[in-house]
C-alpha cells in the first residue's frame, strides 16, 4: 500500500525525523491561507502517488501572492500520469546546501533490511543502481538485532564528513529504520535528504510503501489509504478477497492462481490480443467467488470477451461452472465467454455448462486463440 508524501511526512514527524514546515490543502483558499502562514516564497506540491511530479509541472515555487494563486489553481485538479491532483502541500522553502538520498528496503536476495544511501539526492535509486552501483552505499540491518548504532553511524559517515552532521544523519537513519520496522513498511525513502545552509538535515520529500501482509496489524496505516486514488474495481476486488489489476485491453481474464493469471495475460498478448485485467480467484473458489469476480470484471466497460482459464486442483471445476451459470442469470452477461476448465471435476463442469452457450477450449493456448477470434468476430 502507498500513501501520499504529506502522510509520510506526518509519520516522519511522529518518529522525530525533521521535515519542512508545511500544510496540506484541498482548495485554493486553504493554499492561500497556508502560504501566508508559512511565508512567501513557498513551495506548492501536487500530492499524487506517482514519481515525476516535478517534470510534470506539479511542483512550483511561488514567489508572490499572485503566484500562489496562479500555481495553486494550476496544480489543483491537474492530471499527472492520469491521476487527478486533489490535494497540494504548501511548504516552506529550504535553503539547500547539499542533497542526498536515504532509503530503506527489504533486500530480497539477502533477506535483510538494507539502508541505502547516495551522495546525490533527488535521483531514481533504481537507475543509479543500474548505471553507477558503486555510488550507492548499502548498510544492512541485522535480521534480528536491527540496525546497530554503529551501522547507522556508518551511513552518516558515508554521506557527510562533518561528524556532527554525520551523527545527525545516523540518528535520522535509526529513526527511519524504527519507523520501517514498527509499521511493516516495504520502502521508506527520504529523497532528497537536504543539508540546509544552517547545517541542519531535513527530509524534503518522503515516500513510504507498506507491506500488504503487515497491514492487518496496523489499522492506523490502513486508515491512511486514499481510496480516491485507487482504481474502483481494485478496491472492490480487495473487499471481496480477490486479486484484480486493471489493464487497458478488452479480453477479461478469470484465472485461479496468480502465476497462471499472469501467464494467461501474457498468452493473450502472445497471440495478438490485449488482456483487460489480471484476476486471480484464488485457491478454493466457491461459486459465489466466481460471481464476485464476474461482477468486478463487468464493471470495466472495455471488456468485450471473457476468458476463463481454470486449472482445477483444490479449485473444483464444477464450483466454477456453477458460479458462471449463476452469474449469467443474475448479471445479464452479454459478452461471449470462452472457458477452459481442466482438472478436478472437469466432467461435471462440462455437464453443468453444456447448455450455457459458452465457447469451450481444451488448452489455455486454444482458449486464448478462441477469445481473440471471437473478438474479431464480434
Amino acid at each position, binding site marked *: 500500500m502507498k500513501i501520499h508524501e504529506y502522510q509520510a511526512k506526518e509519520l516522519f514527524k511522529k518518529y522525530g525525523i525533521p521535515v519542512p514546515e508545511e500544510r496540506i490543502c484541498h482548495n485554493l483558499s486553504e493554499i492561500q491561507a497556508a502560504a501566508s502562514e508559512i511565508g512567501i516564497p513557498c513551495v506548492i506540491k501536487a500530492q499524487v502517488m506517482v*514519481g515525476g511530479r516535478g517534470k510534470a509541472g506539479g511542483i512550483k515555487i511561488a514567489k508572490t501572492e499572485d503566484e500562489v494563486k496562479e500555481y495553486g489553481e494550476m496544480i489543483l485538479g491537474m492530471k499527472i500520469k492520469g491521476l487527478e491532483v486533489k490535494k497540494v502541500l504548501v511548504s516552506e522553502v529550504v535553503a539547500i546546501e547539499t542533497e542526498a538520498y536515504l532509503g530503506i528496503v*527489504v533486500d*530480497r*536476495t539477502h*533477506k*535483510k*533490511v538494507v539502508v541505502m544511501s547516495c551522495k546525490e539526492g533527488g535521483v*531514481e535509486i*533504481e*537507475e543509479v*543502481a*543500474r548505471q553507477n552501483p558503486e555510488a550507492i552505499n548499502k548498510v544492512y540491518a*541485522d*535480521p*534480528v538485532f536491527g540496525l546497530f548504532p554503529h551501522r547507522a553511524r556508518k551511513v552518516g559517515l558515508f554521506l557527510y564528513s562533518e561528524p556532527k552532521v554525520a551523527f545527525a544523519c545516523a540518528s535520522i537513519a535509526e529513526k527511519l529504520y524504527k519507523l520501517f*520496522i514498527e509499521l*511493516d513498511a*516495504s520502502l521508506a525513502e527520504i529523497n532528497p535528504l537536504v543539508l540546509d545552509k544552517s547545517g541542519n538535515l531535513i527530509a524534503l520529500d518522503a515516500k513510504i510503501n507498506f*507491506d*500488504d*501482509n*503487515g497491514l*492487518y*496489524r496496523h489499522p492506523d496505516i490502513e486508515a491512511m489509504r486514499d481510496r480516491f486514488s485507487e482504481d474502483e474495481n481494485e478496491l472492490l476486488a480487495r473487499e471481496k478477497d480477490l*486479486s484484480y*489489476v486493471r*489493464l487497458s485491453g478488452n479480453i477479461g481474464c478469470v*484465472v*485461479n*492462481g*496468480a*502465476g*497462471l*493469471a*499472469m*501467464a494467461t*495475460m*501474457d*498468452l*493473450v*498478448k*502472445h497471440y495478438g490480443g490485449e*488482456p483487460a485485467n*489480471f484476476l*486471480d480467484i484464488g*485457491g*478454493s473458489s466457491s461459486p459465489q467467488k466466481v460471481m464476485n469476480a464476474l461482477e468486478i470484471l463487468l464493471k470495466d466497460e472495455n471488456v468485450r470477451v471473457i476468458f476463463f482459464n481454470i*486449472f*482445477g*486442483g*483444490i*479449485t473444483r471445476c464444477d464450483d466454477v461452472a456453477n458460479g458462471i451459470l449463476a452469474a449469467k442469470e443474475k448479471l445479464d452477461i452479454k459478452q461471449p465467454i470462452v472457458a477452459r476448465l*481442466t*482438472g*478436478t471435476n472437469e466432467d461435471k463442469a462440462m455437464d453443468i455448462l453444456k447448455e450455457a452457450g459458452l465457447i469451450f477450449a481444451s*488448452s*489455455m*493456448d486454444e482458449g486464448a486463440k478462441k477469445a481473440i477470434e471471437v473478438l474479431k468476430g464480434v
Partner: protein
Amino acid sequence: MSILVNKDTKLVVQGITGRDGSFHTEQMLKYGTRVVAGVTPGKGGVSVHGVPVFNTVEEAVAETQANTSVIFVPAKFAVGAVYEAIDAGVKLVVCISEGIPALEMVKITGYLKDKNCRLIGPNCPGLISPGEAKVGILPGHIFKPGNIGVISRSGTLTYEIVDNITRAGLGQSTCIGIGGDSIIGTKFIDCLELFAQDPQTEAVVLVGEIGGRDEQDTAEYIKREFKKPVFGFIAGKTAPADKRMGHAGAIISGTSGTAAEKIKAFESADIKVGETPAEVARLIKETLS
C-alpha cells in the same frame, strides 16, 4: 532418488484440525505420504483421518519421530507455527499459509541461520516427489515419476506446466513450489544445489515471475556451476509496474524485476525459455530426446 521429500518423510501437519489441514491430510495420505502426526494446540488426543493429534510439535516429534512439518494455519499464527516446527527439530518445514509479513520472514531467516532446518515457503503449494511423497496441496494425479526437476514461484502455473510435461511423456523427480512472497525460505539456487547432487534429476525447469532478482541471481549461479540442462518460463510479461500481481513478491519496482530482464538473464545462462507453458514442455521434449 529425489530431493527433500521421499518415502522416508514422516510428516506432521500443523493445523490438522482446520478445514484445509484436514482436507489436505486426507489427500496426502491418499497419495501415500506418511502422515504420522497432526498438531493443534488444545486438541491433543483426538485423531484426524486416523492420524493422532498432539498439543505441541515437540510432543508429536517425540512420539512419532516426524522429520518434516507442513503448516496449514491462519497467517496470524503461521509465524509462531514456523518457530515451533524449527524449535522441535524437524529438518524440513513447509509453510503453505500465506500472508506472513516480510519483516517476520526476515526474522525467521535469522532464527534459521544456525539451525539444521530448511523452510520452504511461505505462500507456496508445497512439494512432491512423484510416487514417493507429497507434502502440500499440489494435485497429485498430474505428476509422474521421472527425471525432470521443477522449481516454481507459482502454484497453478506449475500444474499447467507439469501437466504439459507429463502429457509429453516425461516425468518429474521432485517438483517444488518455493512460494510467491518476497522473502522465502528456500530459493531457486538452494533447490538447484540439491538437484545438482541428485542423480535422478537430468534437467530442471525454473518457473519464475516478475519481482525481485532471484531469477537473475540464479542465472549467474547456473552460468558459474550448474551443469544439467535448464529450462525456464517467466510469468508477467504484460504486468504493469508497481502493481502487486496477486503474490506479495510479484511486483515490478519502478523499472526493476521485469519479465524482460529475467528472460534476458535466463537466456544469457543458456536456459531455454518457453514463450508459453506448452512451449516449455516442447523444448524439454526436443532437447532430452
